[in-house]
């Protein structure tokens, strides 16, 4: 067979290269560019090397924000994944109620982030909000604009309300894809409900759960809009997560160099954590 060699393939590859360059590489390199320089405006730049990175990693403010971010993400995953799976397990597998459940579950996902933040802000206000009034009526002193603990509680509750549905839908998709034959086999074996969950449902849901955990990790690690609208990062810095801190540095103080360095570290951490996580979760399948 004659192999014809020509340069025509470039026509097919070029659009992708241009697209990737404009939506990823060029913006990223601009950030890299800022992160190693200092500017006082007027487009005058001074070489800074890794100075910003050193300063940032030693800064208590950054470490605190990172700490808060990690705790927040850990709590979110610890609540939403088991809760999502539990809800998915209670949903009907067939019948008229399936679509009702699915629509109910999908509703929170359809609400824009900032609207969720505004909703919960009003919802949780101690004087007029339903949630705020209710908690105070129980005799618990609750004011999320002044108490860090209350602010955390509200933020987590909001995120659980907004995003558990995603885990539910993914887990449900995994569950209904299990053929009836597996349940019949378990029934004939006389397996108890826990054994059915442990040895049939959980292994069969593993792949969708990997995706669910990954999505919820990335999303909660980069959370910005909802806490920004809900608490504005307060009271004090109590709910100032990484991205809120980043915006304060970049736009509030207009420190482009440190903000760029922070962006890069943030990006690399997210990428690294996702990669490690994905590798660990899929290791068994590849073996």
């Amino acid at each position, binding site marked *: 067979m004659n192999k014809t060699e020509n340069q025509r393939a470039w026509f097919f590859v070029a659009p992708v290269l241009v697209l990737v360059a404009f939506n990823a590489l060029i913006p990223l390199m601009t950030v890299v560019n800022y992160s190693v320089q200092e500017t006082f405006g007027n487009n005058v730049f001074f070489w800074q090397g890794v100075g910003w990175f050193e300063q940032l990693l030693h800064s208590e403010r950054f470490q605190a924000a990172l700490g808060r971010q990690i705790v927040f993400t850990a709590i979110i995953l610890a609540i939403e994944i088991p809760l999502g799976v539990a809800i998915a397990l209670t949903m009907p597998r067939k019948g008229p109620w399936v679509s009702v459940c699915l629509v109910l579950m999908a509703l929170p996902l359809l609400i824009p982030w900032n609207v969720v933040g505004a909703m919960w802000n009003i919802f949780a206000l101690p004087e007029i909000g339903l949630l705020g009034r209710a908690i105070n009526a129980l005799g618990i002193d609750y004011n999320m604009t002044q108490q860090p603990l209350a602010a955390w509680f509200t933020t987590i509750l909001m995120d659980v309300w907004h995003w558990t549905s995603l885990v539910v839908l993914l887990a449900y998709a995994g569950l209904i894809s299990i053929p009836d034959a597996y349940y019949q*086999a378990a029934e004939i074996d006389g397996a108890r409900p826990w054994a059915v969950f442990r040895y049939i449902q959980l292994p069969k849901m593993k792949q969708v759960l990997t995706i669910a955990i990954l999505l919820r990790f990335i999303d909660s690690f980069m959370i910005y809009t909802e806490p920004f609208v809900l608490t504005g990062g307060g009271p004090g810095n109590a709910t100032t997560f990484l991205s809120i801190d980043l915006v304060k540095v970049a736009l509030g103080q207009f420190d482009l160099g440190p903000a760029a360095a922070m962006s890069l570290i943030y990006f690399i951490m997210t990428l690294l954590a996702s990669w490690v996580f994905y590798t660990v979760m899929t290791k068994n399948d590849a073996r």
Partner: protein
Amino acid sequence: MTLELKNVAKRVGTDTHIFATNLTLATKGFNILLGATNAGKTTLIKLMTGLERPTSGEIWFDGKNVTGVSAQRRNVSLVHQFFVNYPNMSVYENIASPLRVARIRGPEIERRVGETAELLRLTPMLRRRPSELSGGQQQRTALARAIVKDSALVLLDEPLANLDYKLREELRDELPRLFEDRGTIVVYATSEPSEALLLGGHTATLHEGRITQFGATAAAYRAPPDLATARVFSDPPINAAAVVKQGGEVALNADVRWPAVGAIANAPDGEYTVGVRPHFVAPAQQSESAVGLDGRVLVTELSGSESVAHFELGDQTWVAQSHGVQAYEIGEMHRFFVDVSRCLYFGADGALVTAAAA
């Protein structure tokens, strides 16, 4: 030991999946449920396992009424068409799982799993997970799980349907040996007549929720009670055509007629349907009594060492099956020969014309 279905019927809503059925299955040889997709094979199997309750009727097992007894208390095993194993357990643990649920002691489990694995040639794979096995090995694992329990009733629901040709042949040859001398009632559902013939035993043909025939496989094959059953138990499909019997002759059309021999000889004149199994339609004359049919060859297929030709005869399509590779020219006329002594005749109601009835 027997499994008896007494007037067992299953309705779901207004649909009847199984009409009142009487059936007695014994331990000797395979009991084959033969029927097309949706004929009710799987429903019948679910009723036998206890996964589903009959709407009416009773199921008796070993002299006891087990109609309301749940599947796990009935001492049954089920192997599906899909390879159903616990995905994150090793093959060893999979085979051991029914024994563990039954709270059997450790050394005993080890011995029985070892024996069963040896029988199914799974010993080298015991440490692997099902997803690391080939389809055939996965199905062997599922079979091992069914066998290790030593159930009194083993149900195989199209166990070979998802395997490729070679593996299917291999496992099909092994199956009878696996259940030999176990004193187990084995029920085997399949949609393939050839599988029923190869496995022998007894065959029940299912058609639209009814058992139309039950008996020793070879006898059932030779004497289908009606046309629907003959269609179920014939692959390639049986040729069926309207004929008119007049005097001592049967006429297919103005040109093709043959002497009425066999059961049809004494039947009254009138319209009948002739059924000819494709392997009694030969591409060459083999006996004096054979009648020639001139047909235009439409499609030819080779399956194994068999040649199958579909040909057009008037407005009908006939199928001829013969040994060896035949050289048919597509679109050309060819003379096929029907062995008229092997023809089955069905009356207007679809029932087989037998010598006794005439």
